[in-house]
């Protein structure tokens, strides 16, 4: 799905969202009458220092004098892999974007990631995974790590990896696997109107508490994470 297609189907009440070399920014009218801030990455663009600083600026500029939810549209490559980006401290720029989104979410601006294309690794951490809920659009192809790269590192064949991926969602790419881990809150149905599904999501928005580990347990993808975190928390609270 292209950016124009997802914008047209999500926001029939109008929007002024622009795409500047893959950096997406604007506002959209919601059916409720409210306005939402929209940022994102389009056209499978890698996220480097220049894109990240513009996106965080849009989020921070909006805080204080606007209200309403923040949508993060995601169709990116991985983080931009270059000498220049690392020289300038890409880790700080990506973290800063994630922090801006997390801060906004904790302070009255609920964040919704909308994964409509690709994303991977550091770019996914700074965008879709830094939101309160990440929604999958059918056809999206997130991949923390692609199988050819994994085959190279693990020295296993693609066939072996594909075979193993049938028994576990823990390593292989795809929306369904990330959903079972608890990373994707829900996947929209492409036979139902997207504005209807968006309105339902905003009406039933969970509170800002991070429940992804519990979701991952309920869906059978991460059986240990929630329990281990809870045990450590209890031990730390009671240690003397």
């Amino acid at each position, binding site marked *: 799905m292209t950016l124009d297609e997802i914008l047209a189907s999500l926001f029939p009440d109008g929007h002024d969202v622009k795409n500047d070399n893959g950096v997406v920014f604007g506002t959209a009218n919601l059916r409720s009458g409210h306005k939402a801030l929209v940022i994102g990455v389009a056209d499978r663009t890698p996220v480097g*220092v220049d894109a990240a600083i513009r996106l965080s600026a849009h989020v921070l500029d909006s805080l204080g004098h606007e209200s309403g939810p923040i949508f993060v549209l995601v169709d990116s490559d991985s983080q931009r892999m*270059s000498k220049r980006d690392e020289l300038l401290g890409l880790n700080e720029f990506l973290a800063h974007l*994630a922090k801006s989104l997390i801060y906004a979410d904790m302070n009255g601006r609920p964040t919704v990631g909308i994964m409509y294309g690709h994303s991977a690794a550091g770019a996914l951490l700074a965008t879709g995974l830094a939101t309160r809920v990440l929604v999958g659009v059918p056809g999206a192809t997130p991949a923390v790590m692609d199988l050819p790269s994994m085959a190279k590192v693990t020295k*296993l064949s693609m066939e072996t990896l594909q075979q193993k991926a049938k028994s576990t969602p823990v390593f292989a790419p795809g929306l369904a696997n990330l959903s079972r881990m608890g990373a994707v809150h829900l996947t929209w149905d492409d036979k139902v109107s997207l504005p209807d599904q968006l309105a339902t999501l905003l009406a039933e928005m969970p509170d800002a508490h991070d429940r992804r580990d519990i979701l991952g347990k309920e869906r059978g993808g991460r059986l240990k994470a929630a329990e281990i975190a809870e045990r450590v928390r209890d031990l730390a609270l009671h240690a003397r």
Partner: protein
Amino acid sequence: MTAPIKHTVQFPADRARATSFNEASARTRVELLLDAGSFVEFIGPTAREVSPHLKIFDLPEQFDDGIVVGRGRLDGSPVLVAAQEGRFMGGAFGEVHGAKLIGLLRAARALSSIPLLILFDTGGVRLQEANAGELAIAEIMRAVMEARAAGVKVIGLIGGRSGCYGGGGLIAGCCSALAVSEPGRIAVSGPEVIETNRGVEEFDSRDRALVWRTMGGKHRRLLGAADAFTDDTVEGFREAALELLGLVGAFDLDRLKAEQLRLADRLRSFGGCEDAIDIWTAEGIAQAETIPELPADQFIVLANNIGRTSRDAR
């Protein structure tokens, strides 16, 4: 009922001074960093909480899944500590490994007044459980910011063999402050990853001098990404951690806005530089090409004179 009293704490400073942080195991780092005998581990190796995923790949497990978490005292005051073991799967984040740090951060948020130290030593996501590792990192970033918003000081110490790469670099960017040593590399894409994806012309991963000056501790200190630099000893990191704990304030929107200005200014000032030496020269350092050879004590004086920090702006 014997509460430790500050001036009676016996700290084996001589051993900590003689021990390389870089070469020490995670357990040795924790033991020598904290006040002697004060460390209590949570879900230690005897609990045998191993990764449930490595057996899919016929890979050996480790009883602590490559991370040590617990509580102890630093100069008499309580601290929570997490230390990654870079020698087990490159210190990479998997489901159990990550969940231990998440639990510790959630406790820190609830306690609000007890600082948390993260001894990073990681290549990033553990490939064999990539989805669980990536998500754990996202949860840790969220938990760090929630803890900081509740008043917790989260200090990162970076000087391990595996550096602080991938999502580890993003978590480091979420901390209140960082201390680094020369071997403490911080980056998102590692040298080999850049070379594999973009070619040797973009980044020659076998050029170790290039790796150190692009991603190493000295460059990160001069950029202001790290607020403290130390020689490669556990005692050096202990002193740096204490110094940073005294400097760090509470997290708020003003800091986030200041970070936006700090990073935008960095792009404006250095965005056209081809190499770290060009950045150091632009910062006003004469004979910038000698920085990699400079001994730690002289480098600390120079870096403090440049005075670039992320204080109040991260």
